[in-house]
């Protein structure tokens, strides 16, 4: 959210400046609505860390109940409370990643978030090298990435998961590898534009290293578009997690995962329709929220540039 916020240097009225850069979100109605939707799910996720109406993984109720007073959204085919499961489902996506092994340790930041961070790091590094150095670097990096893009995504996911097995880290890796080519393309085009500016010439005439120019001179100015793109990618990543869950190769049970919930409820779709709808709706609103937010933000940011 701190997109236009200047980084280094201590300036007076820092808070004011930060507020100013955050305030442009509210200039756009689209971005405000998107932000509200995202914040809603974040809030649900945080609440679920400390409280859910019922134990999410316990089969305490009658199977396939329609929504009622106790189970607000009904129960699933094992008699678990859908409300609680839906709430806890946000955790793996946005809030925590379980480390491999049987240990109960998890690190903050959900699978979707880490997956996008991974593709950003990999993609930006490759893209900046291709865009700034040009020539053979560009050719080789982009040919490899293009070859990667040529594979259907699902196939790539399957390859990664078939090779490494299930697990949160594996899903993160899968998202990283499929997301990196897109990020690299964007970073490359930004680098190719920015490298024509005079301040890059100035850095070159100072004899700065290529790494310094790429990461200290070019990257901070490519920040805006990259962050907006990252926000969209979080949406895609949530989608991907849903897809993997639906195929049964996503995040491992028993903790609830929206995609998996859809898959399981699908089998009982003729007796209990609502169980399919709730997790689908959750995925849709979160992804749409992120999309709206990113779109609105991009609009405002480009307007400010003019």
């Amino acid at each position, binding site marked *: 959210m701190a997109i236009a916020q200047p980084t*280094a240097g201590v300036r007076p009225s820092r808070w004011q400046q930060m507020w100013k850069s955050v305030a442009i979100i509210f200039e756009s109605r689209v971005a405000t609505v998107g932000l509200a939707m995202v914040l809603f799910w974040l809030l649900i996720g945080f609440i679920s860390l400390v409280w859910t109406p019922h134990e999410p993984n316990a089969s305490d109720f009658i199977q396939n109940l329609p929504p009622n007073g106790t189970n607000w959204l009904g129960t699933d085919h094992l008699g678990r409370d859908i409300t609680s499961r839906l709430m806890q489902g946000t955790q793996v996506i946005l809030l925590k990643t379980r480390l491999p092994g049987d240990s109960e340790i998890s690190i903050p930041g959900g699978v979707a978030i880490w997956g996008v961070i991974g593709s950003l790091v990999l993609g930006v590094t490759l893209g900046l090298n291709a865009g700034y150095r040009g020539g053979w670097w560009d050719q080789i990096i982009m040919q490899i990435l293009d070859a990667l893009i040529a594979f259907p995504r699902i196939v790539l996911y399957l390859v990664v998961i078939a090779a490494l097995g299930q697990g949160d880290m594996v899903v993160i890796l899968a998202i990283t590898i499929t997301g990196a080519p897109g990020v690299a393309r964007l970073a490359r085009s930004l680098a190719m534009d920015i490298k024509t500016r005079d301040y890059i*010439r100035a850095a070159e*005439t*100072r004899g700065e290293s290529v790494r310094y120019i790429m990461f200290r001179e070019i990257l901070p100015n490519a920040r805006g578009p990259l962050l907006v793109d990252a926000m969209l990618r979080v949406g895609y990543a949530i989608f991907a997690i849903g897809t993997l869950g639906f195929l049964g190769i996503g995040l491992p049970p028993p903790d609830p995962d929206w995609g998996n919930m859809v898959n399981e409820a699908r089998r009982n779709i003729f007796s209990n329709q609502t169980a399919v709808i709730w997790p689908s709706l959750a995925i849709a609103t979160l992804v749409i929220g992120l999309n709206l937010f990113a779109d609105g933000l991009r609009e405002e940011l480009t307007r400010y540039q003019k």
Partner: protein
Amino acid sequence: MTGKQKKSPVLKVEDLAVAYKVRGGEIEAVQRVSFEINRGETYGIVGESGCGKSTVAWAIVNFLGANGYVKRGSIKFQGQELVGKSGEELRRLRGDQIAMVYQDPMQALNPSMRLGDQMKEVLTVHRGMADDEAAQHCIQMLERVYMPDAANVMRRYPHQISGGQQQRVVIAMALLNNPALLVMDEPTTALDVTVEAAVLDLIAELSRDFDTAIMYITHNLGVIARVSNRVGVMYAGEMVERGTVAKIYKNPRHPYTQGLMRCVPKLGADKAGSILHPIRGRVPPPTHRPAGCVFGPRCDYIQDKCREERPLLRDLDGIMVRCHFAEEIIASEWTPSEELALPQIEAVSSDSETILELNDLKKYYEVQGSSFKDVIGLGEKRYVKAVENANFTVAKGKTLGVVGESGCGKSTLIKTIIGLEGSTSGKATFMGFDISGDISGRDEALIQELQMVFQNPDSTMNPSYTVGQQIGRPMLRFGTVPKNQVRGEVIKLLESMRLGENYYDRLPRQLSGGEKQRVGIARALASRPNLVLCDEPVSALDVSVQAAILNLLLEVQQEFNTTLVFIAHDLSVVRFFSDEVAVMYLGQIMEIGPADAIYAPPYHPYTEALLSAVPIPDPTIQQKHIRLEGSVPSAINPPSGCRFHTRCPRRKLLPHGGKICETELPNWQITGDGHRIFCHIPAETLQTFDPVITVESD
């Protein structure tokens, strides 16, 4: 004046105010502007950027955009009121009676349509003319604007003709419907000086022949002096002075006009005419205009009344001026105030050591052909010969000015010196070290001694870092200053750039163009270099700021004993500034020597043509009329022999019409102390040419 019989003016603007609606309110970009234009008259509107010149033009043609509107006042065109007219009525009027010519011809022409089709459309749509007839008209009009091979041009696309020719097409298109009013918004600003001169001649001629009223907007006082009869000076959205060109240029009454005149270099007979006095401060943005006189905060004569009361436009010996004290201000008695004190130019002893030496330096770029042979690498290699045999030396503490039109290789020359490009052949030495390779092969200590100032103020600074960080970086990188003293050093540098300590934490977007350029200079100086290369450091700035930057560079040079290589396309800027001047054409240095020698005979024929093309903001100065034909040839296949022979107006002075120029390279003729001319015409003949610029004594 335009005759005593009271003709009704073509355009009459009265008390015009234009406002733009923006977030949280509206901005009055233009206020209280009144003027009128008669038939056959060219009315100049001059002022710095952000003064509302273009907004006035847009208000007349109703192009204000979705958020702009005319707030007050009236615009009468041939007696008809334009304000409040519906869009459809205005649209018809615009196409038939009012035409507009913009700055960039490439953007005014549709790149995917043939020129002929674009031109014919004007006639077929507005006049319902048949296609053949329209084509005939267009060809006639193209011939009228001296377009060579007009019938052929009709079939071409915009990118196939040069910039000057494109602007001719746009002007021809504007004249097709024989409009009563032609609005020209900086039509020659994007063009080279020799092309500009030819287009200006054309405009002057057309306004005579077609009896069209022309409203000519420009920031260049010299251009106004050449084309227009009357002029209005705009400042911060108001018209502060208007009158005839002869009167205003001779005796400007408003302090702003006087200031403008002092800060444009005049290419007069003597060097003193090119001393520049900047106006302090900057044009206030429309949201922060002062109460009282808008020019007050920058005026040297400000009094209490100016702060409180808005002056009205009043008549003073035939000049309308918006100033309370215009009678009392005598421009000739003006002395620069303390803070604008000019740097004293001390002659650097001429026997100082040579710091930079180029011997036959060449820079060729390989061009990739498109044939199959080229693709597989068997085709004949072709080169753009960007710099050919550059030979010169620069002494320590001196300034070398390099002038020439765009595409003549000036920028490539300094890129090669600084090492952004490696040279193709030849030798370049700097302080005794070889610098013919590119920067990757250079020693850190050598890199530190060579720094550069860039042209575009908007891209010279990295938008993500503060001023202090950017100036401090070279100090840290080269270790010229211990880490804990960097801040102090940066502030010292900022102060010598006349920027205070409070600039340290600012981001580039909070600075004006001139301030950014100062920071750019400070950054170049931070590593304490011996040689600073300046790539058109002032050409993107307003004149009043330009003068300040030039004076600053001079001052800095004295303080640090820095050597400068200064690129410019404007001969008048270079004159005062440089000790030596090199004139380049198509990658070849044509003439080089002490600044005074360049601006007086003997001239190289190309220098002569350049000098006669520069617009001079003084109607009393007589300039020789030399116009180059055609455009600069391609550097891939430069003309054989002397590269200038295809356009040289002086060739015929040689036997057989200058046959030798086509076949043989000329020799360098040494005509005086360090002054060399690359021409076949004997120096004795060149010496007999009259000076290009003569001042009429009156």
